């Protein structure tokens, strides 16, 4: 068993999918971006099919599912954001669906998009931008700056450091979980090729992936709630 070789292959593979001979490969498109496009295409087609032919009365099962999905997503994210942050629940629902779908891609033998550090960094950056933007929007620039000294002026450096720590912890948690799950699954497949990986796949691919999506959205919502209070 060549564990080192497996890990090398998994972690150090060339992730560039589409190469441009332009500005020394600055605009290279990664594999994860292509996977994201696939996820987006599938989600878009699913939504188009789901929400086509919506009626007010005599609704079909399809429409019932669509309304239940909207209600459920908004219930999850709205409950975490609270009354004041209700405007951000749609974005948080989209992030939840995107991370969940990206993590579940592992079920189909593809590499999850969230296994690329670029994707999780982008997600975390958007979250922290949204958090600080919500804080500025709700409190004004002065109130936002003042919130750094709360509850004591002594911990202002820590508060400033948190701007960097929050997205770092968000992106590393997601990335580490997904890559950890993938590595463990690969090792398992190497050790026992049949049946056992399927059982563990339920935990590592489905349960863990969805939990991490939920945790990511939960923490982002918590930060937003904290920022706008």
């Amino acid at each position, binding site marked *: 068993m060549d564990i080192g070789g497996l890990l090398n292959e998994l972690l150090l593979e060339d992730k560039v999918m589409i190469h441009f001979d332009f500005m020394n490969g600055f605009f290279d498109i990664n594999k994860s971006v292509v996977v994201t496009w696939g996820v987006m295409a599938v989600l878009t087609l699913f939504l188009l099919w789901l929400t086509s032919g919506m009626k007010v009365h005599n609704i079909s099962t399809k429409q019932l599912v669509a309304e239940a999905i909207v209600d459920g997503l908004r219930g999850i994210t709205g409950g975490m954001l609270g009354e004041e942050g209700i405007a951000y629940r749609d974005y948080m629902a989209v992030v939840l669906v995107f991370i969940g779908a990206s993590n579940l891609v592992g079920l189909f033998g593809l590499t999850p998009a969230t296994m690329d550090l670029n994707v999780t960094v982008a997600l975390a950056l958007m979250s922290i931008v949204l958090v600080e933007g919500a804080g500025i929007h709700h409190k004004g620039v002065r109130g936002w700056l003042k919130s750094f000294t709360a509850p004591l002026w002594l911990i202002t450096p820590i508060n400033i450091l948190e701007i960097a720590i929050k997205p770092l912890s968000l992106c590393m948690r997601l990335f*580490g979980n997904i890559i950890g799950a993938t590595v463990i699954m690969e090792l398992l497949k190497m050790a026992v090729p049949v049946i056992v990986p399927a059982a563990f796949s339920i935990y590592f691919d489905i349960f863990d992936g969805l939990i991490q999506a939920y945790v990511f959205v939960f923490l982002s919502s918590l930060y937003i709630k904290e920022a706008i209070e």
Partner: protein
Amino acid sequence: MDLTALGAAIAAFTGIGAGIGIGIATAKAVDAVARQPEADGKIMKLLILGCALAEATAIYGFVVAIMIKFA
């Protein structure tokens, strides 16, 4: 001698903290369910969330280990 492997091994010690944290969280959750069995849905949700958060420290160690070894 290559000491990077040793660094990665030390990073893996974060698992201790995560294990203790999840153990404490689970023990408290069991207590809570024993005291109030009707609230087990909420407790379960909070427990899974707490476990995911506690697990994150171990994941950080894992990420650091990988970074030491491969980056």
